[in-house]
């Protein structure tokens, strides 16, 4: 059923992504592809994988932005982006078939690939670009928050986190329940001023971003200047300068 859950899910699972520590290594995106191509949404197909214009299904993409101007004034911010598992998910309500749904237990937004007709309307409705069309299988796919991993009791408990979180070498990605005020992600959001991306679209994303901390950079270092000219120096001093400059 593509109506949203009537009541707010008891759990609101999502990610808190720390833009201060993300180093833009794309490990999250790579491990996401690795896990999910063999998971419940697999395969994440590629087209022209070895050709000039390769394209394929990715659930997680890392953008790099420059903020506050160029040069010394600016800072580089890496911005990983995948499904926000919105509370007010427009991708779910536009679905004509019932393939898209939001789970009432934990708020995860999923696609039933056996029902999807591949009309792509959900990708038109999502402002985050989180919906992917698998042109080989003819259906829409999306981030599952690794629902086939985080609840998988055959895995050690420490591994029951989304693949992107497990892979992050900078510990910039945190997974948890935003409905629980004592959870790590809730406390991080409270302490760090976590916020919604693109809030003006009214989707009420579950996942949050933690802003970059203020820079610790000192004043701009002046660019190195030319060596002082040797005008007026005698031949000896010029010879010494040449020798010492070698």
């Amino acid at each position, binding site marked *: *059923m*593509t*109506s949203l859950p009537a009541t707010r899910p008891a759990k609101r699972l999502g990610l808190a992504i720390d833009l201060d520590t993300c180093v833009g290594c794309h490990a999250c995106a790579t491990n996401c592809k690795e896990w999910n191509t063999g998971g419940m949404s697999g395969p994440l197909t590629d087209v022209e994988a070895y050709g000039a*214009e390769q*394209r*394929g299904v*990715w659930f997680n*993409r*890392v*953008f*790099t*932005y*420059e*903020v*506050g*101007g160029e040069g010394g*004034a*600016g*800072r*580089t*911010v890496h*911005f990983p982006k995948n499904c926000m598992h919105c509370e007010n998910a*427009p991708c779910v309500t*536009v*679905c*004509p*078939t*019932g*393939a898209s749904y939001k789970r009432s237990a934990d708020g995860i937004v999923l696609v039933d690939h056996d*029902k*999807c*007709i*591949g*009309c*792509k*309307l959900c*990708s*038109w*409705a*999502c*402002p*985050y*670009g989180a919906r*992917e*069309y*698998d*042109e080989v*299988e*003819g*259906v829409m796919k999306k981030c599952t928050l690794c629902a086939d991993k985080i609840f998988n009791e055959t895995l050690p408990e420490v591994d029951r986190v989304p693949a992107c979180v497990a892979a992050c070498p900078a510990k910039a990605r945190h997974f948890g329940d935003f409905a629980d005020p004592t959870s790590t992600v809730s406390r991080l959001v409270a302490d760090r001023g976590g*916020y919604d*991306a*693109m*809030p*003006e*679209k*009214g989707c009420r994303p579950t996942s949050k*971003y933690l*802003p*970059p901390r203020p820079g610790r950079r000192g004043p701009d270092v002046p660019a190195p200047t030319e060596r002082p000219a040797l005008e007026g120096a005698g031949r000896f001093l010029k010879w010494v300068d040449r020798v010492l400059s070698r």
Partner: protein
Amino acid sequence: MHPAYSVILFTTASGAGYGLLVLAALFAVAGLLPSTALLGFVTLALALGLIAAGLASSTFHLGHPERALRALTQWRSSWLSREGVLAAATFLPAALFAVGWVFLGKTGGLFAWAGVAASLLAIATVVATSMIYASLATIPQWHMALVPVGYLALGLASGAVLLELVTRAFGVHRATFDAVAIVALLVAWAVKSGYWSTIDRITSTSDLGTATGLGRFGAVRLLEQPHTEANYLMHEMGYVVARKHAGRLRSIAHVCLFAGPLLALVTAIFAPAVTALALTVGAVAALVVGLLVERWLFFAEARHDCMIWYGR
């Protein structure tokens, strides 16, 4: 937005078909069209044929056309599903009305009610089609009341021009049909001109600063996109070809969709029957070109907010 040919064909053909169905049914019920079998057959076959061709075309862009009937299930939340349900529902009274007109020579009584019901459902279907686009908050050029008004006005205008052609060909033409077609074209022209000047003014409520939440630190610009090659989203949402020629294409639409057919229909009023028919054929030909250009622009000029992430 990428203009898929199947969707352009679907919205223009079904819009014209529904417009013709609405007007033919109402005029027949009002007694302005004779209830002769061949006229009824040609008119309704043209209307229902355009609708059916449009609906069939709309399934071509699906990844799984064989599952298309599933799209009738989620009418509680989805405009696309509502459109499918209304389109299917329109066929029932339309078929009953066609039986009365074509096989029994009757357009009154029960068949009149069927005709009115088919007209109302046809109008509702066109509105539902347009709401698929107008309901998307992600596309500022679509998320406005002018979109359903424009779809309805263009559907009725194109249906009215088709009715002119059929009635002139059968020699059952009336001045009322001229009046309806000319007024419908003028209204559609006004709505579409208003739409174009509106989308020239508006911009998205989002930019990279609001999207990333980093605007508080200063201007945000894209340094590197996630991939070296364009992905599905950039192919589907980042279509830029037509925007480059939008001005010229709009001029073509102004001439072919509105000015040309209006001039032809007005001239036909004062022309002898054969010349009038030829002029009406010309009006339909121009209308087809104009409609296709207009609908292509409708998609190509729409900018999706998810392209903001890509710095576009």
